[in-house]
């Protein structure tokens, strides 16, 4: 036995393919996971060139003006506020819980699942910015506005369905959107002076 020449055992390579697969899967998953995230918005369609600019008739109580100046300060309904205060202010504006007559008027809307609801249907948040505003400041404000809507929608969804807004099915989401329609208007850009 000992005199016999020993054969070198071949390396078992059956698992190398598995390893290759695992590498492949790892790269596949990590590359597709890196999806782009962002704040989705819809732009209004362009104004035809020959059309005169006409101002929409909106009652003053229905409109909330948010201005950002070139030093990134926020003016909300003619008073300076901090970004941290904006969300609550916007929420109060959209919801108008105490039927304040300086806040948007409520209208009876027939909403599926909910029945007739009092909705501040005609509210508009008008967002204006300077040409010198920093992009981050603008995104901050957009973010707070989105957060205000999300919280209100989550609230009403949780009360009615016991789930947050994104977990609802499409029909239910539509109903909730009827109660809190997102109305952010961005003014036509104006030039408020130098850089």
């Amino acid at each position, binding site marked *: 036995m000992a005199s016999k020449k020993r054969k070198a055992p071949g390396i078992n390579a059956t698992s190398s393919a598995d390893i290759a697969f695992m590498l492949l899967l790892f790269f596949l998953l990590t590359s597709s996971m890196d999806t782009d995230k962002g*704040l989705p918005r819809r732009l209004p369609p362009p104004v035809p060139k020959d059309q005169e600019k006409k101002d929409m008739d909106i009652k003053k109580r229905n409109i909330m003006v948010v201005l950002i100046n070139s030093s990134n300060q926020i003016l909300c309904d003619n008073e300076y506020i901090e970004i941290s205060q904006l969300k609550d202010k916007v929420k109060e504006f959209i919801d108008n819980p105490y039927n304040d007559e300086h806040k948007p008027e409520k209208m009876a809307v027939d909403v599926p699942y909910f029945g007739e609801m009092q909705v501040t249907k005609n509210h508009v948040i008008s967002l204006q910015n300077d040409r*010198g505003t920093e992009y*981050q400041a603008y995104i901050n404000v957009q*973010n707070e506005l989105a957060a205000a809507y999300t919280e209100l929608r989550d609230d009403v969804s949780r009360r009615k369905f016991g789930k947050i807004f994104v977990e609802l099915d499409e029909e239910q989401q539509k109903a909730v959107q009827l109660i809190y329609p997102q109305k952010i208007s961005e003014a036509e850009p104006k030039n408020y002076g130098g850089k």
Partner: protein
Amino acid sequence: MGKFNKAGGREMPELNTSSLPDLVFAFLFFIMMVTTMREVTLKVVFRAPQATELQKLEKKSLVTFLYVGEPTVEFRAKMGSETRLQLNDQFAEISEIQDYIAQEKSSMKEEDAPFMTVSIKADRETRMGVISDVKQALREAYALKISYSAQTRVN
């Protein structure tokens, strides 16, 4: 019994695995063909702004990217350090957006065109003037679905 005396003489029959790597490669090539690689070499520097209310962009094939930021170091000498716009692989002017969007739209399937989304990837220190101009151009080009690209803010 003699039959069992061959201790260790029997070896496990080996699987022929020489073709497995080929299979894996075939699979890899398939994936590479199917996925749309939209990586472009960035010619502008940008650090995305931060936000919390983010939504994922669906259907990557319908997304067009616009980069806004300062030129990278190697282009500084040529382009200066003013904020510039990058479409695909080259610097562009705002007036070129409309053509670019039209071109992108025509390369899509007709039924997909209304769902085209433009993702604006802008540096967080960009002045809003540029962004407003871009937005106006997008409106003119009827690319109305936009997304302000941002990172998740960690508190």
